[in-house]
């Protein structure tokens, strides 16, 4: 019996996986898709819940939550806490989630300076004003790695983590084995 048939017959229920992109560039999600045809094998083992790939808006009870990006605004905090509350295993994916990454370079400046540079003094800005609509999530004073906001179970470093890193991590985890990355898969850039 193939794994797919086993999954369909309900003998091995598929693990539920949710993903979210906070303050990142979506590169980590693109890298996940770089597993290429292995994604067919992956969807035999897992089922996607909330993720930009399914466009489901609310995260349900999940086995694994993958978080790309750091925490830069109030909505990031809300989404991250929802994921922590609903996912048994929460994973920081990529440099921004692990240590703030490139977006955290704004921590060198006061938030007011950043906003004024972009919306007031920026080259080519017309009708300069700092956006202040109630629909826009408020920016945090600083960008934070996600482990500074919630408890995190695993970390996948890299900018982005390579497709092989995702594959090694997910297959080892689903198989219940200790996750072991070869040297070439541990990098911070």
């Amino acid at each position, binding site marked *: 019996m193939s794994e797919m048939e086993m999954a369909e017959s309900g003998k091995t229920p598929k693990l539920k996986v949710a993903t979210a992109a906070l303050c990142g560039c979506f590169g980590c999600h693109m890298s996940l898709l770089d597993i290429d045809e292995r994604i067919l094998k992956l969807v035999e083992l897992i089922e996607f819940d909330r993720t930009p790939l399914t466009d489901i808006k609310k995260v349900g009870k999940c086995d694994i939550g993958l978080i790309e990006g750091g925490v830069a605004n109030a909505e990031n905090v809300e989404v991250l806490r929802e994921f922590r509350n609903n996912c048994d295993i929460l994973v920081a994916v990529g440099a921004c989630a692990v*240590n703030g990454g*490139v977006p955290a370079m704004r*921590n*060198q400046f006061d938030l007011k300076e950043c906003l004024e540079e972009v919306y007031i003094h920026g080259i080519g800005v017309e009708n300069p004003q700092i956006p202040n609509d109630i629909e826009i999530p408020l920016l945090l004073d600083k960008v*934070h790695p996600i482990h500074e906001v919630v408890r995190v179970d695993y970390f996948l*470093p890299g900018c982005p983590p390579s497709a092989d890193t995702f594959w090694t991590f997910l297959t080892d985890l689903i198989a219940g084995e200790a996750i072991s990355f070869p*040297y070439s898969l541990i*990098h911070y850039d």
Partner: protein
Amino acid sequence: MSTEKTFRLDGRDIPFIEGDTVMDAALRAGEYIPHLCHNPEFPPHGSCRVCVVDVNGRHQCSCTLPADENMDVDNSSEAITDVRRSLLQMLFVEGNHTCPGCEKSGACQLQAVAYNTRMLNPHFTHFFPKRSIDASHPEIVFYYNRCILCGLCERVSRDIDKKSVFAITGRGINSKLEFNSLSGKLGDTELSADDKAASVCPVGAILPKYKGFEVPIGERLYDTKPISVVGDVAANHSAEDSVLGNADEYSSDE
């Protein structure tokens, strides 16, 4: 029968001569002990503590510890690796080490030693200090964000180049690298790109201008082989090479 003196390191007999440190003898015997502030070309400094080993049940700094018989040195257990990883995590959160945006990435000793300890996260809360860049020198740029205060440039500029361009001032969290000029700017010091001090930085703090990202990803010093095989950044630097290193000539090592 040999009268050679030895100590034990990870169960292996390591020969040493009088005056050797544990680090000296281990490196000569081909045993890698992770280190950042230490460069075997120069006297030890003992400040980064990354070369910590367990000697007969006590944590010791191997680059400053004189070798002695009856030493039983643990250099590779999970316990000692945990200690080193914590030290590295503290170094990472204390500065602003944005690896994806750093020209030294892939050929950085801080990164390579962290890979050696299999560090996957910073663990601690980031300090995010506000630090600047000094680009006043025509050939060299200095990034305060990346400086780990190992003191190598200070020692080498003073002892080898005889220029004393660099000095670490302040104490504790206020420690800072300063430049020896009236303006305090690097560009007004006697530093030259040919100085030894310009090429000993283990991280991306002192970098030559106009050479950023010269070596493509995949060919950088630590891209495919660990630092225990490739060796230090400074040891891989030669006059015709960029400070960023070139992995090609070392691929025959294994």
